């Protein structure tokens, strides 16, 4: 499991827009690696640089130790699954899958065997002679996968492969992709703007923003310990509190003074306008007086009618329920406290019918342990644009972000 695929200081710009900005990144053999980010973050450009469709302005791309930066696409042992599938419309399913093998001038017998194997893998043996416009979206997707995999690429590149499918199909293909990855054992480089897809499939994820890698880690690391408020907001839901870091907590308020000397520096008080002071875990040693965002995931908060017992580092706040959405396995609450509308998720590990559920307008208590919140640098207005718009629309709306994806798609045509 050495570094198998390596981007070294890769940059690419289109006009004034830096699509990829000095990115260095290594992927291990057999890994399922995702590039995740809103449109225009440079993830597709990075993929196209590896495929050979774009030349980087700076940097090198290494594949299995070999420098492939200057190789044309057809000499690279990588294959791509395109968002549009790009199946050849004049060829049957069989001929689409056989295309790469025929180009490589493999013996006829071998081509027949390999294509047959692939057709079995994607369970389309009986559709081999249909043309792409005679099969469904999900089937097209599977043919695209087979067409790429039959060449036994060293890396399989997937460019938003599920974006064109409806939700149900997407979920099924998600499982199929995972199974295929386990079965063939090759390296997958997966590009998506959908954090759900990235989280459920990946061994590791690189969250990208404006041409740079914002955070790289396992899905757990990225969700549980986001390094920036952008990552926290882009991956899953979160509550942000806008505050100023105050003094570290006093010793006597920490764990009855027993471990106090060791831990007191790790917790700080956070002052928030028109809101009670909060206790926060300060692992980054943010200095007093800094303005920060405190991020707390909805499922990390507890909601109750009775005030919970005070324990060290437990933040307890009173509020009024504004909205309740019952989702079967869980219930989502929105609770108003001052200027904040806090979202809380409660899992029904045990739901008792005779228990009176919390309803609208009830006065409730919200509580969470200081360890479950993260103090992060405040995100910019630009970040807010990136996060709040549905990711597909981001590239189209703010003019400042247009360039990268427009340029990308213009050359793709």
């Amino acid at each position: 499991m050495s570094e198998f695929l390596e981007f070294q200081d890769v940059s690419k710009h289109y006009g004034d827009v830096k699509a990829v900005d000095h990115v260095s990144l290594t992927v291990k053999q057999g890994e399922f690696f995702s590039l995740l980010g809103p449109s225009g973050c440079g993830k597709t450009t990075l993929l196209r640089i590896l495929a050979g469709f774009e030349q980087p302005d700076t940097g090198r791309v290494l594949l299995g130790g070999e420098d492939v930066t200057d190789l044309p696409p057809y000499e690279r042992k990588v294959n791509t699954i395109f968002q549009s599938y790009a199946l050849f419309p004049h060829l049957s399913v069989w001929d689409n899958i056989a295309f790469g093998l025929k180009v490589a001038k493999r013996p006829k017998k071998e081509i027949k065997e390999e294509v047959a194997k692939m057709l079995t893998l994607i369970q389309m043996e009986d559709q081999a002679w249909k043309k792409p416009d005679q099969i469904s979206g999900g089937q097209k997707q599977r043919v695209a996968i087979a067409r790429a995999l039959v060449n036994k690429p060293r890396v399989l590149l997937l460019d938003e492969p599920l974006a064109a499918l409806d939700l149900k199909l997407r979920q099924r293909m998600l499982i199929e992709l995972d199974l295929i990855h386990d079965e063939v054992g090759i390296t997958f480089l997966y590009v998506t703007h959908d954090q759900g897809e990235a989280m459920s499939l990946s061994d590791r994820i690189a969250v990208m923003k404006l041409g740079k890698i914002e955070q790289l880690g396992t899905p757990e690391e990225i969700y549980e310990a986001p390094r920036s408020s952008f990552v926290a907001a882009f991956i899953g839901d979160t509550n942000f509190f806008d505050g100023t870091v105050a003094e570290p907590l006093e010793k006597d308020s920490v764990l009855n003074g027993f471990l106090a000397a060791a831990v007191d520096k790790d917790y700080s008080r956070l002052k928030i306008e028109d809101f009670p002071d909060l206790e926060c875990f300060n692992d980054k040693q943010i200095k007093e007086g800094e303005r920060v965002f405190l991020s707390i995931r909805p499922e990390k908060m507890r909601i109750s009618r009775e005030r919970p017992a005070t324990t060290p580092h437990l933040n307890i706040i009173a509020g009024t329920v504004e909205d309740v959405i019952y989702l079967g396995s869980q219930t989502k609450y929105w609770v108003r406290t001052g200027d904040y509308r806090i979202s809380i998720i409660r899992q029904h590990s045990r739901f008792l019918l005779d228990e009176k559920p919390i309803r609208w307008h009830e006065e409730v208590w919200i509580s969470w342990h200081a360890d479950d919140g993260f103090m992060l640098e405040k995100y910019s207005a630009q970040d807010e644009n990136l996060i709040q718009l549905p990711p597909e629309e981001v590239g189209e709306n703010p003019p400042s972000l247009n360039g990268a994806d427009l340029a990308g798609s213009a050359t793709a045509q």
Partner: protein
Amino acid sequence: MKAQRRVRVFEWLVTLPSLVWLLVLFLIPTVLVFAITFKPATPYGGIGSGWTLETLRTLGNPNYPAIVWRTIWLSVVVTALCIVLATPMGYYMARISPRRRQMVLLLVILPFWTSFLVRIFAWKVLLHPEGLLKQLLVFLHLCTPDTSLLYNTFAVLLVMVYTELPFAILPIYAASEKFDFRLIEAAKDLGATSFRAFRAVFLPGIRVGLLTAFLMVFIPSLGSYVIPDIVGGPTSEMIGNKIAQRTFVDRNLPHAAGLSALLTLAVLIPMITITTLRRKESPKDALREEGV
């Protein structure tokens, strides 16, 4: 059932104008041409009464096979050259920015703003022994002063390609514009070189455009007579010249009609054969055949 029938009636109603058009302007004249072939000619250029096989006998003129053969090979070469030139052009036009595309499209159409005859006379001036092109070629030592650029098959070929080229470019461009160029990328991704991708993916992708270009160039080429008349010589006569000659000089309409009918059959028979043959093929075989 009733709604279905109404849809059918509606379909017939909207198809009717084009059917009438085809009937009046194509089918009836064609039948007339075939019919006149079997009429006797009158000395003053009219059509006599009764029926005769006289024309069929005169069509056996020993000069004709050579002319027919020349007409066919000239048309084939013109069509091939036009398609070979127009395909990269269509590809190029589909890839450039819409603004530049408008410009290039305008340039392609621009010649149509000048009369066809004027343009051919312009070529006559260019190719003339005292003409600009000839003088330039001599100056560059690319030809000797006594080589003739005019009144030969070469001149006919050149001017025919010039005239027909837009008719090849336009349908090929229209098909290229609809072509999904991401498929080229997909082909390269699967290991195909640029040329292989062009041949195995682009050409099949625009085959409707290619077929249209073929028909748009080949059929008018078969019938052309103005170009060989103006820039051609006695060795580059085409069947169109003979038809014109029989109509305007000899004033023998049945004979002219006979030659026209011959030309029509020469185009129709191969085309009908090809289409019926293709239709008989099972779709499965057709798919295999189109494979790379």
